[in-house]
C-alpha cells in the first residue's frame, strides 16, 4: 500500500496533494460558509486564460505568473461586482466566467498541440509534478495559511453577520477582497497539479462533507484536510494499481476527486441524521406578540 509511493513521481504527486490539502481544508470552510461555490468556479475559469497566456509566454514556468495575474484581477473584479450588488445576479458572474474561459480556449486552439495542452490545463498533470513545483506550492500554501490566520476571525464575523461586523468597524469590502484573493491563490497553487476544473472540487467538497460530521468551523477545516489526504492517497493508489496491474488508464487527479465525492456521498446519511437530531432539540416556534403591528 505504500510501495507505489516510493517511486519518485508518485511520492511527489502525494506530497503536492498533501500541501494542497493543508490549504484547501480551511479555505473550503469559508467557501462553504460564504456560499462562494459559484464564485470559486468563476475564479477557476477566469484563471484559465491567464494559465494559457503564461504558458505561451514563458512555458511551464510561466503558468504560475499568468495564473497569479488573472487570479488577482478576478478577485478584484468579483469584489467590485459584489459591492455593486451585481454578484447576487448569477448571470453577471456567469458572463465573466464563460467569456474568460472562451478567451482561454481561443488562445490555446492556436497551438498545434491543442488537445493535449487543453487537457493538461483543464485536468492538470499530477504525475509530472517537479520538485520546483512542490516548493512553489509550499510557498503559496504558507502565504495562504498566513492570510487565513490573520483574517479568520474577521472573516467568520463578516460571514455570519455582515451588518454586525460592519457596525463593529470591520471593512466588509476589504474582507471580501481578502477571501477572493485567498481563493484565487488556492486556484493558482493547484492549477498545474489538478487543473482548473478539478480544483473546484477541492474547494467545495471537503467542507460540504465535513459539515456532516461536525458543526465547528475549526473541526470542519481539519476534517476537510483529512478527507483530501485520504482521497489523494486512495486516488493515486487506485490509478497506479489500475494502470500497473490491470493496464487500465485511470487519470490520477480524476480518481482523487471521485474518491472525495464518494466520501461526501457516504457521509450524506450522517448529515441527514444529524440535522434531524438537531431539529428535535429546537424549541417550539417563538410566539408572535398579539400587540405586534403589521404595517
Amino acid at each position, binding site marked *: 500500500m505504500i510501495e507505489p509511493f516510493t517511486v519518485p513521481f508518485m511520492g511527489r504527486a502525494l506530497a503536492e496533494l498533501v500541501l494542497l490539502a493543508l490549504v484547501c481544508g480551511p479555505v473550503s470552510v469559508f467557501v462553504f460558509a460564504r456560499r462562494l461555490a459559484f464564485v470559486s468556479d468563476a475564479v477557476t475559469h477566469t484563471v484559465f486564460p491567464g494559465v494559457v497566456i503564461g504558458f505561451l509566454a514563458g512555458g511551464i514556468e510561466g503558468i504560475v505568473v499568468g495564473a497569479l495575474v488573472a487570479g488577482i484581477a478576478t478577485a478584484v473584479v468579483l469584489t467590485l461586482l459584489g459591492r455593486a450588488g451585481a454578484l447576487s445576479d448569477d448571470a453577471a458572474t456567469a458572463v465573466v466566467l464563460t467569456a474568460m474561459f472562451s478567451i482561454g480556449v481561443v488562445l490555446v486552439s492556436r497551438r498545434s498541440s491543442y488537445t493535449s495542452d487543453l487537457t493538461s490545463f483543464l485536468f492538470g498533470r499530477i504525475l509530472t509534478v517537479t520538485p520546483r513545483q512542490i516548493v512553489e506550492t509550499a510557498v503559496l500554501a504558507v502565504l495562504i495559511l498566513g492570510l487565513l*490566520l490573520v483574517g479568520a476571525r474577521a472573516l467568520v464575523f463578516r460571514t455570519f453577520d455582515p451588518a*454586525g461586523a460592519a457596525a463593529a*468597524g470591520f471593512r466588509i469590502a476589504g474582507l471580501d477582497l481578502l477571501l477572493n484573493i485567498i481563493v484565487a491563490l488556492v486556484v493558482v497553487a493547484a492549477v498545474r497539479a489538478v487543473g482548473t476544473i478539478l480544483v473546484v472540487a477541492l474547494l467545495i467538497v471537503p467542507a460540504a462533507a465535513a459539515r456532516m460530521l*461536525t458543526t465547528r468551523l475549526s473541526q470542519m477545516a481539519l476534517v476537510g484536510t483529512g478527507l483530501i489526504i485520504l482521497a489523494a492517497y486512495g486516488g493515486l493508489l487506485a490509478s497506479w494499481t489500475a494502470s500497473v496491474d490491470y493496464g487500465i488508464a485511470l487519470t490520477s487527479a480524476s480518481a482523487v476527486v471521485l474518491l472525495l465525492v464518494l466520501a461526501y456521498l457516504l457521509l450524506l446519511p450522517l448529515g441527514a441524521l444529524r440535522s434531524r437530531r438537531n431539529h428535535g432539540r429546537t424549541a417550539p416556534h*417563538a410566539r408572535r406578540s398579539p*400587540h405586534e403591528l403589521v404595517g
Partner: protein
Amino acid sequence: MNDAAAADAALRCTEVSVGYHGTPVLTNVTLDLVPGQRLALIGPNGAGKSTLIKSILGLVPVLAGTCTVLGRTPSHARTLIGYVPQTDSLDADFPVTAGQVVMMGRYRRIGWWRPTRGVDRRAVQEALDRLGLADHARTHFGVLSGGQRQRVLLARAIAAEPRLLLLDEPFNGVDLVSQDAILSVLRELGAAGTTLVLSTHDLTLAHEFADTVCVLNGRQWALGPPGATLTADTLRRAYGGHAIELRDGRTVLVEP
C-alpha cells in the same frame, strides 16, 4: 453646536435625513439623548427605523443635518456603539456556537489575530449569564429558539461594553421568557448609564421599555414621553390608518 454640550450628549441628531443612493427614506429627525436614556423608535414597516439605526452606526450615509455619538461622528464612534441586529437577518445554519457569537463582541478589542485572553472569556461568560444562557455557551447557534438567539445577540453587544446600544426589532418572534430577560437586562444597562435606542412596532413593549418615544414614518411625527406620544391622534396621523384606544389607556392600531 457647542462642542462641550455635544460631548455630554450620548446621541445627538439635528434635522437629520437618511437614505440610500441619495434618496431620503426618513427626513427631519432631531434627537438629543443623555447617557442612560431609553428611546423607542416607533413606526410601521418601511418607516425608516432600521435605516436610522444604520446611519447612527455609520453604515448608511446621513444625507442632511448632523449626527454625533458622544461628540464624535458615527464612523469614529464605532467602538462605543453596540448593535443588536434582527435575528432573522442571520444564517441559522452557520456552524458557530452561542459562545463564539458572543465572543464576536470582543473581536474589536482582541484585534485581528491575537489569541483571546482571560478577560475576554470572562466578559463572554458574564454576558451569557446575565441573559440566562450560561448553559448554552457550547450550543450551536442554529438550534437555539428565536428568543434565545436574540438573547445571544444582546449578550454579544453587552460583551463589547458599549455606551450607546442600538437594537433593531429585538422583540420580533421572541417568546415571553426571552422578552422578560431582554427587558430586565436593558433596564439594568440604562440604570448603569448605557444609552439605549430600540426600534419596535409593539406599542405595549414601547410603553414598558422607553422613557422617550420617537414616532417615525418617512419623517419624525412626535418625540416625547410614551404617554404624550403614543396617543391615538398622533399614531393615526403617522400611520395613516386607524387607531383605537384600549381600556388600559394604551393604544393599538388596526389596519384601515
